[in-house]
């Protein structure tokens, strides 16, 4: 996972001319900025609500349909009464887009996740009385794998917007000295600048 993060950092930091990449120009609808902004509904188990915002950057296009991309993301979600999580990290992925707009993608991610208890916390003192206690949260790391299927509206309509449904599994670790598996569903809107 450290290797993925390092690769992501190198690719983001390396200018395109240094990578010698070719940007497709055959279709004007495709020949737009490689930079996009993204907003997502982030639902842990689908129903524990959250939001994520990020930037999406096309690192390398191979022909018209295929692209290696990187994303930076900030997000948060709430498991009501149990905990609130906030994360910041990146993803590296591959996507393919058919000429009529259908798009699929696969991405690997790594983030820092901080969780805070979402209900009052009490401790009992030496006098036997319960007192409210402060929760400063727990630091976790959050590796992830997501798949995506959706539509690049730009292919047909010229509107530089892609809508993707992205099932994701991620791990939260450590939780009670183990890695805890989560499932999440994202509905993402990416606007190409």
């Amino acid at each position, binding site marked *: 996972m450290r290797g993925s993060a390092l690769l992501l950092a190198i690719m983001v930091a390396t200018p395109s001319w240094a990578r010698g990449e070719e940007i497709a120009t055959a279709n004007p609808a495709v020949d737009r900025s490689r930079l996009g902004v993204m907003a997502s509904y982030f639902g842990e188990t689908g129903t524990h609500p959250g939001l994520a915002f990020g930037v999406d950057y096309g690192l390398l296009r191979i022909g018209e349909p295929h692209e290696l991309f990187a994303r930076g993301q900030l997000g948060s979600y709430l498991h009501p009464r149990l*905990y609130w999580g906030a994360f910041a990290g990146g993803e590296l992925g591959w996507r393919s887009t058919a000429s009529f707009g259908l798009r699929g993608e696969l991405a690997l991610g790594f983030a820092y996740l901080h969780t805070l208890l979402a209900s009052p*916390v009490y401790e*009992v003192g030496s006098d036997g009385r319960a007192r409210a206690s402060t929760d400063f949260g727990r630091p976790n790391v959050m590796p992830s794998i997501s798949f995506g299927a959706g539509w690049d509206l730009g292919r047909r309509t010229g509107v530089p917007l892609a809508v993707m449904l992205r099932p994701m599994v991620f791990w939260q670790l450590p*939780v009670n000295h*183990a890695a805890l598996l989560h499932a999440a569903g994202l509905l993402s809107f990416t606007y190409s600048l």
Partner: protein
Amino acid sequence: MRAFALSLAVALLSACGPSSKLDDTFYVRSRGADMPVWVRGDLSTSNVMLVLISGGPGGPGIFFADSPGFVRLSKKYGVAFWDQRLSGSSTGTAGVETLTLDQYAEDLDAVVQVLKQRHGDPKIVLLGWSWGGMVGTAYLSSAARQQGIAGWIDLDGVHSSPSAMSLARAWAMARARERVAQGQDVEKWNAELAWYDAHSPLSMADMVRHGQNVAALGGSIRHPEKDPGIGSAWMNFSGPFNGMLTMSNQATVLAEAMKEGSAMNQAMLTDQTGALPSLTLPSLLLWGEYDGQVPLAHGQEAFQKLGTPADRKSLVVMPDAAHGSLLDQPDGFAAAVEGFADGL
């Protein structure tokens, strides 16, 4: 229009989960563990708060909040569902070395103190189920702590694991012999009888295979169709419950229980029979007739040895129920608890 929209929203929300007057979630922090407690129900007429000390060890408490027996009890009493350390949805930094009976009792004391302060000093009734019997007995063996508790409900609970395991082994072997005599799965049950002959007494490491046998012989649950399994969709997706964490925690604690010499292993093997005479509070012992995990004879021993005067303790045997009438006979379970709690 606004009123209609509001009514619709309330109706939809009500349809999503069981309604309840009390609906309070908080965490109790104790020696590295952050343990969630969910309080549901109604204290307004009874002022009785039932506190579930769930089984396992490592089993969840909150998980049972929407089981039919507790839903019925929640209409009349407050019910506190507590996820013990490294169990259910508990988190924190607590290590497995903290899984001692003394620590469980200290955690329960913290839960009781917070409940009393947060809910106007209700009458606390502890309900220990299976492994919860060990925690409840450890807690109540302190006279000072016992003074703060109005009643004790022992639901197929353990007070001595060596004794319970010995009885459970004998129960399983007797049922296996019945199967052989009836010509049912003769080869399988003969093999299991041979295994039991080679494992006397049972060790904690034997508990997985033994548990599978007891379940196959109907000693865990008589009516599997009533088993909540992984819980309702509402509980999984909207309640203060984390199914994946619950499974992960339970696996951790059970693995510790089977590890010879571990804190959990030592806790499991503790014999608290000698502490029973010091329990003098009103008590209800509720046992499944067909319990193969903690057989009825264990409950009868507890009933005889409890220090509670005869007119303030009772042993109720639930027909057509195995280990936990809560699941097999939710109405019978709730009626027995009501009969006890209303008399406090």
